[in-house]
């Protein structure tokens, strides 16, 4: 096995690392690399670039909504903006970012020398990028980019309601992204199943790798359904009449949400895993409730396949009670995950560095998203909340206030592993403060706006509706978020320019990625420590402490 090869012959690994380091200088090294770490970093950088663009779309929309009336953009442009904002954040930012983090970290955490089938991973990355560029090329066409919402419900997304090449390109882009994501997920799945180092049993996988396993299972089970749904939509736009029958529109929704809801957990699990790893590390304590958490993950993954129609309560064409039951039952699994993280905190030795702050930010803000999710899982409450700003608030609390915060936790936590240098902690805390205030100022008012009857996906609202003040507050908040992101960019710049060397293991991590150099050599490990549990490095530290042989780092 490749892992044992790496551990058995450090000299070979060193030589390989130097060989690849030489290739670095060439462009080819970046374009055609089969090193999972380089592919992953490129995926993450591309995701981050798309995040900045999607964020600009959001700022444009928030600016437009700051006052009643149309001041900044027209309605058609606004429709393109929210369509591309949603499509960008879901297809090009959060899902690829989650998979990028997995592609970098999972092979390290399981003690593998590389990801399984790295060329396939690379192809997947290129497909995602190509899909994104295809979607965006719609802006260059006469009718503009996709503008039927990221959900692209039929018949609105059909040729007669939304004509134009831009919409075609959007559909093609989503298909390409879907294929790319599926390929990357397959490689990760194979890595976890087949490439674990000797001794790395399934119940010794770190929590992050377990969450990635659940994630990639959901990707391979649902994203192909999206690709098929979109391919049929493309056929319709080119003249077929598949969705045109009376049952067509609801069939489209069923196909879309069969992907679309597990997709939400695809964008949640990896970030929960990051939070679990970060919390255990900064509480200096073994992750508590590991097995219950794994069971909860598996139950959650299974249930996630049967909750999709809770997006369709108002259609009168699905079994509302059944989907309400499965969706509400997720509370038990999610509650177990929350329990485990709180149990890890209690009795720990907690250090509030930037990664920990963002992880706790995820934990608490996601809770607001989750609890409002329980509300919209109740059909009679959803009859009011559905398609209102209440729902917009709900999913931004999960995806932005939640997942993206954990994304920043991951950036601060693993940046030293990726680059060998630490990000500035003080700037990180400034960013965190700006983003917490900005996020809640932006999204909390949306709960109230939705409750008071403001629909989503509108560029304008009546000055008499009483929506103005809350919208202004929300817009103000969005610019605080932007400021926070600017601080992050500055932090990246400063930290790479004047490097603060991190060493191999700056946080006293628990899992194997901290047992190698920063950044790791081409084939990851010169030697592997004994894998005694899901926290092998903590075991080693405890053993050393017990033997009163504390080693100086």
């Amino acid at each position, binding site marked *: 096995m490749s892992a044992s090869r790496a551990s058995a012959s450090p000299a070979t690994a060193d030589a390989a690392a130097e060989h690849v380091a030489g290739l670095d200088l060439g462009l080819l090294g970046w374009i055609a690399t089969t090193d999972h770490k380089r592919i992953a970093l490129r995926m993450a950088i591309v995701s981050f670039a798309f995040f900045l663009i999607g964020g600009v779309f959001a700022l444009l929309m928030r600016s437009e909504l700051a006052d009643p009336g149309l001041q900044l953009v027209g309605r*058609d442009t606004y429709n393109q903006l929210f369509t591309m904002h949603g499509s960008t954040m879901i297809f090009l930012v959060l899902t690829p970012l989650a998979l990028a983090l997995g592609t970098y970290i999972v092979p390290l955490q399981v003690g593998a020398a590389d990801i399984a089938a790295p060329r396939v991973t690379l192809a997947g990355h290129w497909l995602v990028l190509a899909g994104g560029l295809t979607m965006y090329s719609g802006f260059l066409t006469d009718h503009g980019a996709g503008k039927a919402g990221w959900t692209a419900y039929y018949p*609105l997304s059909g040729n007669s309601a939304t004509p134009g090449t831009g919409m075609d390109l959007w559909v093609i882009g989503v298909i390409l992204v879907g294929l790319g994501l599926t390929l990357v997920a397959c490689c990760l799945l194979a890595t976890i199943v087949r490439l674990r180092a000797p001794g790395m049993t399934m119940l010794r996988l770190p929590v992050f790798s377990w969450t990635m396993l659940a994630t990639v299972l959901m990707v391979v089970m649902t994203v192909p359904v999206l690709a098929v749904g979109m391919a049929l939509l493309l056929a319709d736009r080119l003249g077929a009449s598949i969705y045109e029958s*009376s049952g067509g529109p609801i069939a489209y929704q069923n196909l879309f949400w069969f992907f679309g809801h597990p997709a939400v957990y695809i964008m949640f699990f990896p970030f929960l895993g990051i939070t679990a790893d970060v919390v255990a590390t900064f509480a200096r304590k073994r992750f508590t409730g590991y097995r219950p958490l794994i069971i909860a993950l598996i139950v959650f993954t299974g249930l996630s396949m049967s909750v999709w129609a809770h997006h369709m309560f108002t259609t009168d064409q699905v079994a509302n*009670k059944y989907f*309400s039951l499965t969706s509400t039952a997720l509370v038990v699994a999610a509650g177990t995950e929350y329990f485990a993280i709180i149990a890890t905190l209690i009795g720990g030795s907690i*250090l509030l560095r930037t990664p920990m702050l963002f992880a706790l930010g995820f934990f*608490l803000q996601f809770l607001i998203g989750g609890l409002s999710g329980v509300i919209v899982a109740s*059909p009679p409450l959803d009859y009011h909340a559905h398609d209102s700003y209440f729902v917009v608030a709900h999913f931004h609390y999960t995806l932005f206030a939640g997942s993206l915060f954990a994304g920043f936790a991951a950036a601060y936590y693993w940046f030293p592993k990726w680059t060998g240098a630490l990000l500035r902690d003080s700037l990180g805390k400034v960013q965190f403060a700006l983003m917490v205030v900005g996020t809640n100022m932006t999204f909390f008012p949306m709960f109230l706006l939705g409750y008071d009857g403001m629909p989503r996906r509108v560029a304008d609202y009546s000055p008499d509706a009483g929506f103005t003040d809350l919208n202004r507050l929300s817009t103000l908040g969005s610019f605080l978020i932007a400021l926070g992101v600017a601080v992050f960019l500055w932090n990246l710049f400063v930290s790479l320019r004047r490097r603060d060397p991190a060493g191999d293991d700056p946080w006293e991590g628990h899992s194997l990625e901290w047992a190698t150099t920063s950044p790791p050599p081409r084939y990851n490990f010169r030697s592997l420590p004994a894998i005694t549990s899901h926290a092998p490095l903590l075991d080693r530290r405890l053993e050393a402490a017990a033997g009163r042989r504390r080693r100086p780092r």
Partner: protein
Amino acid sequence: MAFNTSLGWHRLRWPNRGRVYALIDTRDEFQDLWRVYLPIGIAVAVIVFGLVLFAVVRYRRRGDEIPGGREGPPIVEGLYALVLAGVVVFLLAMTFRTDDRVIEVSPDPGLQVDVTAFQWGWRFTYLGEQVTVVGDDRRPPTLVVPTDTEVRFTLHSRDVIHAFWIPELRFKRDAFPERDTTFDLSFEEDEMTGRCAEFCGLAHGEMTFDVVAMARDEFDSWLDTQRRAGQIQHGEPG
């Protein structure tokens, strides 16, 4: 002990059997359920925020030692999961009970209105009354309804999917092409705004209608006036 029917448990089990049909106020139904969900949600949030704050302060790092990470017995997690399951069952029971009442349609509605949604406006046809009201995003139509009457709506779309939403009534339902969906609403004397909730293209945000609910006798005379005037049109259909 007598079975207390005022709790409504009989409705939970046999929603349609042996009960006299009464006016359902969707706003009240929503409010009753909301008052169950919201306090529970807030309580959970307060507990979790409190625990995290407590842990971060109480267990902040003081020295260099590594705390012993002993696993508690899984029995705690098991009991906790049972409590959560109990909460889920309770919430679902409340939800199902309310849902039955909200989506139930009366066997004998006091008025029937056929609603056609289109890009971007509404057509309301009062069945059997030869009265139709139409309006679009430039001149929204007015839906006039009697109070204290179960009004039956039959909803469909002429083009893409729309949704009929009256925020004040806390109720919406999607309008699909080539498919009818029916629901009952009752109104108190009031004026309010209804709107399209499902994104439907360029003028989605302006696809509104006014709602005026008036006493039955006032409504009947309004209906008479409309009938005599023939079909009225506030603006052109799209």
